[in-house]
């Protein structure tokens, strides 16, 4: 599963950098974005294998972004893992179509598990 492309979106620069470092431990190719501006076209171009996204993005609700991704046929199949430090966020993310949810703060192992499962699922669906 190495070299899989993971797109991380979080408006907190520190967390974004941390996630990048963390995921690089597993030798994933990590792409980061701080905002959701033009994110659909970016995703369509990049075609990542997994999207990891915070729910509270500056300027837009992450759930809206997720909904949009899931409404575009070309990229709807990309698993989306959503993260949030907000209590009760999980239900909102699942409702918006997120495939997985990781609460902040998280155990590194939990994040890896989520990414691993998401990738497996994607491979399975493409097989």
């Amino acid at each position, binding site marked *: 599963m190495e070299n899989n492309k993971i797109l991380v979106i979080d408006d907190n620069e*520190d967390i974004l950098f941390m996630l990048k470092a963390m995921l690089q431990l597993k030798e994933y190719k990590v792409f980061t974005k701080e905002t959701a501006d033009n994110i659909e076209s970016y995703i369509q171009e990049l075609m990542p294998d997994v999207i990891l996204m915070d729910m509270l993005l500056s300027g837009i609700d992450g759930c809206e972004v997720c909904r949009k991704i899931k409404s575009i046929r070309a990229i709807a199949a990309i698993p989306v893992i959503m993260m949030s430090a907000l209590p009760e966020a999980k239900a909102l993310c699942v409702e918006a179509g997120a495939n997985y949810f990781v609460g902040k703060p998280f155990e590194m192992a939990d994040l890896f598990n989520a990414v691993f499962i998401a990738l497996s699922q994607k491979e399975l669906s493409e097989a």
Partner: protein
Amino acid sequence: MGELMRAKDWSTTAVGTPDQWPQSLRTTLSIILNAKFPMFLWWGEELTCFYNDAYRPSLGNDGKHPGILGMPAEKAWSEIWPIIKPLIDQVLAGGEAQIFEDTLVPIYRNGKIEDVYWTFSYSAVIDESGKPGGVLVNCIETTEKILNAKKIAHSENKFKNLIKESPIATAVFTGENFVVELANAEALKLWGKNKNVIGKKILEAMPELEGQPYMDLLKNVYTSGETYHGKEDFVNIEVNGKIEPAYVNFIYKALRDGDGKIYGILTMGYNVTEQVEARKKIEYNEERLRLTAETAMLGTFDLKMPEREFVGSKRVYEIFGIADTNISYDTLFSAIHPDDLHIREAANKLALTTGRIGYEVRLIRPDKSIRWISAYGKVFYGEDKNPSRVLGTIMDITDQKKFLNDFQASEKRFRNTVMQANVGITILKGADFFVEMANETYLEIIDRKEEDFVGKPLFEGLPEVREVIEPLVTSVLRTGISFEATEFPIPITRKGDTQIGYFNFAYQALRENDGSISGIIVVVNEITSIVKAKHLLAENEKEFRNVIMQSPIPMTILRGEEFVMEMTNDIMLKTIWRRKQEDIIGKKLFEAYPELNTQVYLGILKKVFTSGEPYKANESVAYLEGDDGMKKFYFDYEYAPLFDTDGTVSGIMVTANDVTEKVLLRINIEAEEARLRLAIDATKLATWDLDLQTSEMIHSPRLAEIFGHDSLVLLTHQQMRDQIHPDDLQLIIEKAFNEAMQTGIYYYQARVIRPDKTIAWIKTQGKVIFENESIPQRLIGTLTDVTESKIAEEKLAMLAAIVESSEDAIVSKKLNGFITSWNAGAQRIFGYRADEIIGEHITKLIPADRLEEEPKILARLQLGERVDHFETKRITKDKKILDISLTISPIKDAEGNIIGASKIARDITKQKETERLVTESEQRFKAIADSAPVMIWMSGTDKLCYFFNKGWLDFTGRTLEQEQGNGWAEGIHPEDLQRCLDIYVSSFDERKEFYMEYRLKAGDGEYKWISDKGVPRYSIEGDFLGYISGCMNIDEQKTFAEKLAESETRFRLLTNVMPQFIWIADPQGNLYYFNQSVYQYSGLNEREAMNGGWLKIIHPDDKEENIKKWAQSIATGEDFILEHRFRKYNGDYRWQLSRAVPHKDSSGRIQMWIGTSTDIHDQKVSSEQLKKSELLFKTISNTSPVGLWMTDTSGQNSFVNDTWIKWTGISLEKQHGHGWLTGVLEEDKLTIPSFEQAFKRREKYTAEFRILRQDNEVRWCLTEGSPYYDISGEFAGYAGSVTDITEIKKLEQQKDFFISMASHELKTPITSIKGYVQILQSMHKDSPDTFLKTSLGTINKQIGTLTKLIADLLDMSKIKTGSLQLNKEHFSINDMIHETIEEIKHAQPSYRFFFYPETESIVYADRLRVAQVLINFLTNAIKYSPHSNMVTVRSAIIDNNVIVSVIDSGIGISKQDQEKIFERFYRVEGKDENTFPGFGIGLFIAAEIIHRHNGKIQVESEPGKGSAFSFSLPLDNQL
């Protein structure tokens, strides 16, 4: 004639050939032939005939000319020979010339013997022998003159006959002095004169007219020629030497001679005195009846039974709410409420035995309103013993009924609202505040039982409030001034515990009817929970604030209205403020950074401060002056209000993120994009792309706009389809789609319904993209808004249709006159087909003599004028001339230039023709006959009627054609017809006058009595010509007597039927009439009552006022209204409402007083009680701080109190039914639970919703309502209350928001720290540096503790504010225990766990929360067992509950501590408390979680030996 004479062969005549003629003959003939007058000559022995050119016409055509020239006279004039022979002989015998004027000498001409009149002379012509040789005839034919004279005489005769025989007074006055020319017997009778007056001047004949207005009228008619009609004019007439007043109907009409000059006046008139007087008397009677009924507010009716003929007074129809008084009896009474029909039936049945009918029922009026009526009547029976007539009264008694209902309802309402409202209500009486009543809510609030509280002094039952409350209630009782308080703290002992409760309450003085204060009404609303919640919020805020200040997010706290910078965290200071802390802390923000004053932030901060609503914005621009100079920033920031304990905003928390770099980058990208979008938007074309497999749709923003949305909205294919007009979806779109699937081309025009309900027309063009050339894959296309052109198209089509379907010819032409359009109407009228005429010049339709019209019309059109209804003639294709009415309007082009004309032509030929015929008809006689105020008809010798005057036709409402012949007979009442025919025919045959009376159908369909007097007509010659007859409407006369008697009877009957007392007084105030009710009630007889006896039955206390008021009314003429008591025959007094109104004559003089008295005793008595109860209810309901409402038994809202009205600003009337919903927000109307459902089941109803208050504030409301039952236990409606819960709602929202944001802010930095630590751990897991590894482990563990702490804090807040949510699911408890133990084992590898599951059991619970409890138990067990490494877990099922226990052998808990261990912040404090760190809230949360699951939590422990913590959960029985 000369030629004829010369050509004639004279040889065979007696005079021989001309050369043999004597000179005298020759001379005479020469004179004759040259004369211009008709001349004839007989000559010689045979009297040979000669005549000249002028004579010829008299011989007519086809007669004697030219045969008699030269013929002997006897042969030529054989038909008149016996007449003229003696005349000729006389002249020839030497007699004098003979002259005859206008003499009838019938001759043969024109193929028959004709009556010809002549004026002629016979004179002798002397021949050479000196003797008469011949006879010369000079003659003029005067036939025409004579005939005309005869006609005139005939008409005059007809006219005079009419006057003479007229059944009405008729006279003719001639000349300026009005000489009485003619006067028939009736006229003389009316005047009271004899025939001597004829020939005299009017003023000589009738000197009494001097000074009366009639002379002026006559003069006026004589000079102006205008006819005068007098109706019921008052006149003084001398009858038998006495001048008496009389009423007449009459007419003055000018008579004109042949030149149109007025020479006299025709007058016709008749005495209507008797009628007028009879009618006045009836009117008086009717008026008396009407006034009586009006005074008593009654409607009266008269019902004739077998035919169900109903006559009702105006008020009857008013009561029934019906405007049409022609409605039938059955229709009128079909308004009776179906549920009440049996009441009327029973009353009808009873009436059969008593003869009286009386019932009270409900009506449903056309406007659906319900009215109560009472009907009383007397039944009359016909000879067949069946009811023949009912006379009666109808009264609207809704108010009385309503009054009684209201009274009962008010009592009920009071009891129910007060007892059931969820505000506490109690009534305190007297100086010791004796508790008269207290409702359930009140008792709940104070936690007392009714028997311990009600019926005792207040402070005996509620001693703990005395200190606070006594001064307040004492003051209210003394001063009567209400006291209201909000959030007032009062100590209350409940469940044995005295605590401060918070209340909104009002003390209102309870006043008696006399205004004295007898007690206090207390209305209380408890708001302890709200106040406590407020306090809690402030507390929460404090707990979090310190933590937040440490956060890595830039934050500042501003305090107060001046926004003093109270605190700011380091990161904010460094990145944004860029000054030293001591330079800015304690300073006002806008003084420290004056440049902010000109930026948006001050306004936003103020708004947040006043509204208490947080504000968030991204990428806002700010300029800030720091130590390093002015800097421009882009911020994402948030202003969160900080609340004080009292709920007011005291400060604002600012969080801000500098996003300048990011924004600058993005602005560049956006500029690029904007350029691209502009290019697309430049065209108004929308584009779209539909995936036919998935129905996914992509479209340009313009499409959303066309569909009526913001351009940013993305519509799905389904959403678009939903907006298509339903009529177009199948017919147009699906059809187009199916075609597209065949052809590949997609095209349609259809309607779209925009969200604002407007219709837009769209045009779509698209193309199907096929895969493998067969499977349609995508549909792409464009879409445009074609609404405007579509509307224009529709308009055009409609106009065209109108033109084509018009009956009129509609033609348009150019200004040069060439026809450009031609409709079907034009073809019908003019005969040309469009293709024949278009392009032709308009003059083709114009007759030659009217060609000059066209340029005139064109000139007017060029000025932009219209030509309206211009009547002219036009010519058709087959050269027929038509009368045409033209309307021509200019046609303008888009710039307003006139480019042509449209012409509407209507064929009015027939109309014109008729007009001409009318003008041609005989005028003079008709005019006189028509203007006569009587009806006239004439018949011919064949008995058939051929003439009816206007008076007759106006009366019957028929046309002359309908009446002619025997048509008139259709109008005669069938019962009268045969009799009339007999009289007419027998009189006719004997040529006798006749008089008859019969009923004739008038134009309104009703038969009226008519008198008909006919006389035979004769010509001057005495020939019988037929009959002429004059008729008069005598219906009123005929029925007056009848009516008079009836109206008298009706008055007596009705007044006696009325339940009210009716009395009538003379203008001096003496009562002289009473109806039967008065006698029955009082026991007085008629004599006693009349002689002032009625005064005796008035209650002594009321007598004085009664006399005073009555005297006052008599003196002033004002209505008399008084409430007083009358004594009944049995000595009881009952309250009556008396009312009397004066009846005045036309001069305004009072003629009588009509009075009524109505029994109002029950109302009066109960109204006293009602006033009291109403007052109490009103005071309570309007004092109430909550809204109160009630419904009726159908669930319709029937009452709301002032508080609710004040909130909504909607009046009580408008709240009725479902009107109360008006104020509720639309979106909430959809979500509130159905009241109807709860209502049907008679269940308690609870709902939360928002209303838009009249002050434009949106408020949250909680309504609670329950059914209530009346005294008899019958369901009577719902009563409920509405509480304003906005503050609670707001607090809840604020709390939730604050908690979640705070935890988010706390967790965010932890996330990054934890992440980095774990990365480091992972990177160094094989490192030999043990210190590094241990340190990282410790950090990670501490972060774990911190995370747990935050989670606990969060849970705590949720529990305290009641917002802890449970996400329940079905799961196996044993599985959950296994997993949890595994998790703990992982962190505590040195511990051993023993799990003894008993039975597999499924619960319905929040799995994570229950696991949280177990983790708490397990970690506690480990924490408090420092000397053990074993923990036991058990699960068991007892009484349908699963019980999970965690048993340790640790330090244990003392009995005393065991009681408090589940409380907040409680920690077992051992000697070395530092050993056991933690907040002490874990068990509190655990207990709360279990309680929320309806479970139990408990501990068993012995210090030193260990503890067993356990919880139980109910088993899920549904699996």
